[in-house]
């Protein structure tokens, strides 16, 4: 009897719960973010404290968030889309989900190569993807560029993250843009030949594998190494800034991706949304935004965190990041063809 009553009772409860909803008060912005909560909440809280504008957000992978924006269309509650790579921003702009905006503040604070030419999105922090190596088994002088990792001297010594990760897709897309398709495909085939073990699911695993002696060199985003170095300063893995010297196009600089944002086309308070993005690009917020995840600020007036400064300055690839979006599909097809999983 108790069992049956419990069944009915819980069913009733669930119906009651469906009626619940909260009403906002005061100005409010809604953010769809593929940047995770820990990396946005502290800054949003600061903004709310300074301006009184409340911020609500949902986090998810970029793909589902784009699908949701598109499905909700005119009725979407979202004012801002935040992503952790340029490919998805480019795609959102292609689908007409982001509104073109002009802002002298953003023009001032964010380098041109890290913004959409039509003003639909802007970079907020830089994620540099470069070479890491075993400080026990590799002389940094033997390293030079991403392309050089395809040379026979690295046979059986290279570790890579899976080609399914957008960071690698963006990297390869910008390689296509710099080196041309044919050369890039040859480099990719060389990488695959040089792999010590099948590609890993995360950058952390690549660094761990180098530390454990499974391989000697790899390509990762700098903040993963920064985080692991902070936990264990004796980790025998160091960072090398790729593509700094040599002949063109191999001296183009380190591949950079962005974590960025744009105002949605359906937002009913675009000016309010824009003022949040502008605030985020200012020196003070930039410092907090980038430091939370050991990324580099886009605003040149903001110095990177002390840990990153220790790695020294580097030349970043000046190719507009929008190329990474445009060539992403070609990059994936190429990686599939050479068997880079």
């Amino acid at each position: 009897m108790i069992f049956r009553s419990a069944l009915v009772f819980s069913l009733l409860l669930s119906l009651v719960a469906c009626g619940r909803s909260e009403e906002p008060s005061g100005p409010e912005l809604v953010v769809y973010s593929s940047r995770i909560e820990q990396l946005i909440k502290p800054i949003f809280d600061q903004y709310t404290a300074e301006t009184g504008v409340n911020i609500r957000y949902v986090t998810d992978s970029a793909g589902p968030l784009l699908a949701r924006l598109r499905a909700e269309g005119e009725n979407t509650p979202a004012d801002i889309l935040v992503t952790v790579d340029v490919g998805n921003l480019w795609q959102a702009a292609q689908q007409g989900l982001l509104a073109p905006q002009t802002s002298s503040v953003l023009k001032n604070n964010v380098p041109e190569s890290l913004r959409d030419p039509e003003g639909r999105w802007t970079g907020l922090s830089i994620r540099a993807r470069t070479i890491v190596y075993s400080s026990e088994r590799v002389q940094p002088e033997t390293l030079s560029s991403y392309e050089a990792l395809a040379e026979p001297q690295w046979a059986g010594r290279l570790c890579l993250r899976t080609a399914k990760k957008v960071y690698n897709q963006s990297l390869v897309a910008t390689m296509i843009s710099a080196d041309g398709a044919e050369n890039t495909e040859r480099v990719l085939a060389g990488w695959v030949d040089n792999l010590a073990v099948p590609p890993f699911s995360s950058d952390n695993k690549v660094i761990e594998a180098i530390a454990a002696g499974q391989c000697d060199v790899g390509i990762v985003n700098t903040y993963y190494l920064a985080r692991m170095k902070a936990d264990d300063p004796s980790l025998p893995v160091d960072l090398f800034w790729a593509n700094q010297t040599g002949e063109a196009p191999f001296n183009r600089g380190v591949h950079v991706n962005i974590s960025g944002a744009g105002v949605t086309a359906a937002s009913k308070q675009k000016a309010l949304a824009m003022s949040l993005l502008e605030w985020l690009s200012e020196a003070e917020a930039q410092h907090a935004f980038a430091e939370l995840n050991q990324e580099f600020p886009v605003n040149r007036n903001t110095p990177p965190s002390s840990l990153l400064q220790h790695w020294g300055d580097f030349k970043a690839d000046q190719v507009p990041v929008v190329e990474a979006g445009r060539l992403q599909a070609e990059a994936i097809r190429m990686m599939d063809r050479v068997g880079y999983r």
Partner: protein
Amino acid sequence: MQLAQRARVANQRRLRPTPLWLLRAAGVALVCAVLVPVVVLASSWLSPEVEIWQHLVETQLPRLVANTLFLMLGVGVLVSVIGVSLAWFTVMCQFPGRAAFEWLLMLPLAVPAYVMAFVVLGVFDFGGPLQTQLRELLGAGWGIDVRNRASVIVVFSLVLYPYVYMLARSAFLSQSSETLEVARVLGCTSRQAFFRVALPMARPAIAAGVGLALMETLADFGTVAVFNYDTFTTAIYKSWFGFFSLQAAAQLASLLLLFVGVTLFAERRSRGHGLFVQGAKLQHLRRFPLPPVLAGLVSAYCALILAFAFVLPMLQLLDWAVGEGVSQLTSRFFALLGHSLWLAAMAAALTVTLALLLAFCRRFSRGRWGSIFAAAQLGYALPGSVLAVGIMLSFSWLDRQWLLPLQAWLGLDPKPLLMGTVLTLLAAYWIRFLAVASGPLDSALERVKPSLPEVARTLGAGNWRLLWEVYLPMLRPGVLTALVLVFVDVMKEMPATLLLRPFGWDTLAVRIFEMTAEGQWQLAALPALTLVLAGLIPVMLSIRASRGR
């Protein structure tokens, strides 16, 4: 002859349970609701994606299909062997620790497959503590990469065998010992009695369990991604996230569904029209005492499975969680826990009720109708985020086309009523987990002898009394199992929760996603541990309830 037939027809009419058309209508409505996202996906074929398909067929699909089939074969065999053997030993045999193992062996159910995957990799991989220690002992220069097919199969099997174990266990429990005794009297050895009587009798339950395990394996993305093991879902996500073609992703997903649909149909067909009913249980089961050596071996076997499927991952999670400290344990963390429990409870109650309705539909309508109702299980075979998108597209369409104009017409301030509410999320849960609830309910219902409710009806019981006082008490173990399975599955569910949750309804699974999204698996340990422990609550409750009879 004619007279007899007429009498039978009259008899049937009188014995007919519930107004059949009402039940059927409700069942058909349910099936339609499940099929809406499926139809949305199938409609993707209207805009062909020739280029992507060409590329996938040339470079990917043969390998992915082979990988997937291999994985399914491995998981299917392993979960059947582990699940059925454990169920048989704990129900039918006497060995040291039996009573404890009987419920302990259900616990791995609460461990999400993706958590198991990152724990296994964390412990056993080349750079993990185990191999590092060994290298320190034995010298550098060796090591094995555990990211291979066998590991993926083992990981899935360890977390999915409880489906088979639980369903087979309740089937064996309800087999009357007379049946087996009759088999023994007729000259069967105890082994023959198992293989020729008990096992075939339990077939619907075992098939349901294995089916659930395989559908979950097919739809999985997170676990295989940890191992970078490419399956069919890899192609789905590559099309969607890489090529930005939701169309191609939906087309691939609908092929997956077709495959599952055909398989489900074939399994039902191959069972034929046999009945799997049981007589009432007259006496308590007598367990076979095992000879000492064999009893020891069986205990060791149970302990081994338990150690790898539950104890080891728990210890590793605990180790990581302690290492990261308690800084995460804010009031927000408890809010996450609250949301997880609350959503799981609501979804379990709702899903099991609907599944019960569907189960009765199926019982009272054999033949063509039966397979129509079976279609309601398809939701489980879809990768979570694909199903979530299907639901999202249909609900936002409803909002846009009907609810907003309706509100405007009524003079209200129009705002979306479905998207971004708990309703949508609950809909996603029940559509996804209807199959999970149906497994135990159907196999419990199949074991109810038709003559029992018929007797009750002859004695003058109405429909409601029949349901309340005859069916529900007899279905009790099945209902409990269904509630537990759905509750735990909803707690573990990630992609649909991520996409469809209303603002502020973050759950533990969302937390785990956020931590692992940036590769911080150690930080995910505390929410994962909490998730497992919270998932144990209903498992414990159901064990107590099933003992309290």
